[in-house]
Every structure is written in C-alpha cells, then in structure tokens.
C-alpha cells in the first residue's frame, strides 16, 4: 500500500489542489475525520470548516476553509467538492475582524427585511471564517 493518498480539492470555478497527501482532515457534517492512505470508501457531506492537508514531504499542514459540498473517499483517493474555498494563510486575522465588525454594522443599518436577511447571512459566514482562523 502506498504511503500517500491522491487528494483533489475542487470548487465550481476550478480545480484548486491535485496533490499526493500524507493525511487530510475533513470537516464532515457528522464530525471531523482524518483520511489516511487505505481509508474505506466514504461519502460524506461537509459542514463549513477547515480542511487540513498534510503533504507527503512533512512540514506544516496547509489549512483551507471550505463551505458547502461533500467529500468522497475511494480506493483512488480523496475528492472534496466544495462550493467555496478560502486559503486561510491568505487572510489576516485583523482584516477578518474588521470585516466582521463591518458586517455587524450592515445588519444594524439594514432597512428592508431582505437587506437584513442578506446582511445576517454575510455576518454568519464571516463569523464562521473568523472562528476557523483563530
């Protein structure tokens, strides 16, 4: 058995990652699980959370925030189809906190119900991301 798994991360816009990984932590909707080489075939939906990819050469794992989608483990590897992927290393904590604060103000300022709903959704999304970052 090989000591790596083929890992693909796909968003609707493009193929984001196509590498051999040593292990991948997936935020499944019924709990996080780590996929190691030789994992049994699983199909799971994912909840918004962080995917941790440990590459074969060792080193720091790359952390990516994913939202909406599912993970599929087959004998060939792991495929994660996510609607939204954000590389956590690309966003700074301060920036994020600023955005969360802005979104909070938007909710306060919203005049119509529709505006309010959208603002609340945006806030919830940012809060999730901020939590994942910290």
């Amino acid at each position, binding site marked *: 058995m090989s000591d790596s798994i083929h890992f693909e991360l796909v968003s609707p816009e*493009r193929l984001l990652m196509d590498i051999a990984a040593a292990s991948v932590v997936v935020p499944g909707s019924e709990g996080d699980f780590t996929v190691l080489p030789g994992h049994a075939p*699983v199909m799971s939906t994912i909840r918004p959370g962080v995917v941790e990819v440990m590459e074969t050469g060792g080193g720091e794992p790359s952390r990516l925030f994913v939202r909406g989608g*599912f993970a599929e483990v087959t004998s060939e590897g792991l495929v994660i189809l996510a609607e939204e992927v954000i590389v956590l290393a690309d966003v700074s904590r301060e920036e994020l906190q600023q955005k969360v604060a802005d979104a909070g103000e938007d909710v306060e300022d919203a005049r119509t119900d529709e505006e309010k709903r959208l603002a609340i959704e945006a806030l919830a999304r940012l809060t999730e991301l901020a939590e994942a970052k910290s």
Partner: protein
Amino acid sequence: MANLKDLKTRIQSVKSTQKITKAMQMVAASKLRRAQEAAEAARPYAGRMASVLSGLAASVAGQPGMPPLLAGTGREDVHLVIVATSERGLCGGFNSNIVRAAKKRIIALQGDGKTVKLLCIGRKGVAQLKSQYGALIVDTVDLSHVKSLAFADVQPIAERVLAMFGDGEFDVCSVFYARFKSALTQIVTEHQLIPAAISGQASGQDDDAGTNDAGNENGGETPPPDLKGSIYEYEPDEEEILQTLLPRNLSVQLFGALLENAASEQGSRMTAMDSATRNASDMIDALSLKYNRTRQAVITSELIEIISGAEAL
C-alpha cells in the same frame, strides 16, 4: 460619374468601421481565452458531481420516496424553459440561434398541449422573445453588471428555479444554451435540469433501472471509481446526501451552461467581427480601385480638353 471627394469620404468611413471591428475582434479573442479557461476549469467539478450523483441515484433508484428533483413530479404538464443568451449584441447569429431552437421547442410543447413558461437569462434573448412570447416570460435575469461569471452569480438563479419548483409552478425544466466547441462552432444545446438528467440513466425511468442495478456502473464523465468490491459508507445516509446534492447539482449545471455560453458568445463575436473586418477590407479595395479609376478619368478628360483647346488655335 461619382465625385472624387465623395469616394474619399466613403473610403475613410469604411476604414474607421474596420478599425472598430478589428478592435472588437481582438477584445473578443482575449475574452474568449479567459472564458474558455473558465469553462474548462469548471468541468472537473461538474464531472465529479455527475459521477457521484449517478452512483447515488443508481443506489436509490426504484425505491419509494425518491426526491422529486430526481424523479420528477410524476407529471409533465408545465415546462419551464430557461433561455440563456448574451447581454450584448454584435456577435453574429449567436442569440438568434439559441432563440430559434427555443422557439421550436416551445411550439412543439404547445402543440402537445403543455403549458410553457420562460425564464430568460440575458437581455438579448428577452428582446427577441418578448414580441411573440411575452406573456410566457415569468422572469428575466440581467447579468450585464457581471464581468466574469462567478458561482455566486448563478446561485440566486438556481434558488429562484428551486423555489418555483417547490411551489409546484412547473414539472420539467430545461435550459437552452450554446455549447462551446471551437471559436468557429457553437452547438445550441438543450439540457434538462429537472428532473435531473443523469448520464446513463433516463431520469429514474423504469426501463433503464435494469441496467443501473448492476452495481455502481454509470456513463458519467469520469469513470466510476473501482471500489474493489467494497461499498461506500454514507455519512449521513444516502437520501440525506441526495437531498443536499440535488439542489447543488442544479446550480452547478446552470453554472456550467452559462460558462459555456459565455465562451460561445465570445467565439461567435470573434468570428463575426473577423468576417466584418474582412468585408470592410474588400470594400476598401473596391472603393480604392474606383477612386483611382475616377481620378485617371478626370485627368484624361482634362488633358483632352487642353489638347483640343490647343488644336483649335
């Protein structure tokens, strides 16, 4: 005899038109490359989605309580036709081709006594359909503010369609768009969205169930993974996954269609502008020839006047 000055202004005006068409062609070519890349980059996701869905669909096929998005409502009375066109003109027969195919379908459906509803994406399609089928248009989507199509732009459209389906406003939904084959050829395609047309399976119809029962075999774009006799563990269970997957599949399919459409539009515009540029240069050649001949004729007649004047002395 045509005036020399008239001819000159004529040549100038054709030249400036040619400059514009040439520029538009170049812009379309660069946009085409980007649109094509986007369309190709989106294919892995759609392909994976299709293969996962067909696997899942095969495993729940024939069971009661299939989600309506997959099995349909059991009726085929009301059809929702989504017509995806461009926001801008000057792209050859692109919009007309799509609208023509859609109209043909509408006529066929109405001939069968079905009710047709239209959802137009893009201003140009609305303009062409409004006169004849204005009463059928239930909604229009304007994407003219969108520079490069993102998944988030498509989701509201998909949600709207899902909400309509949830309210029982239609039974079958299909989308008309132009599939990008090359810069020269775009194929107008009809793609059924609801009930989900899963490759290798005629949307859960019984006559096809037999072939699908043989394991997780399917005709999806990516070959089914070799499970070596083992079966998937589903987390949560199959039905629940299918419930979340099917609406998402709709957005993905729509997104893919619109990306293809965007690439086709640019390809079509590029070809149209290329031939317009060529036409302009043909015209300039013909006009220049005429201009030169006229000039020569003027000189000749002036000479004759001078000579005959000198002879008369």
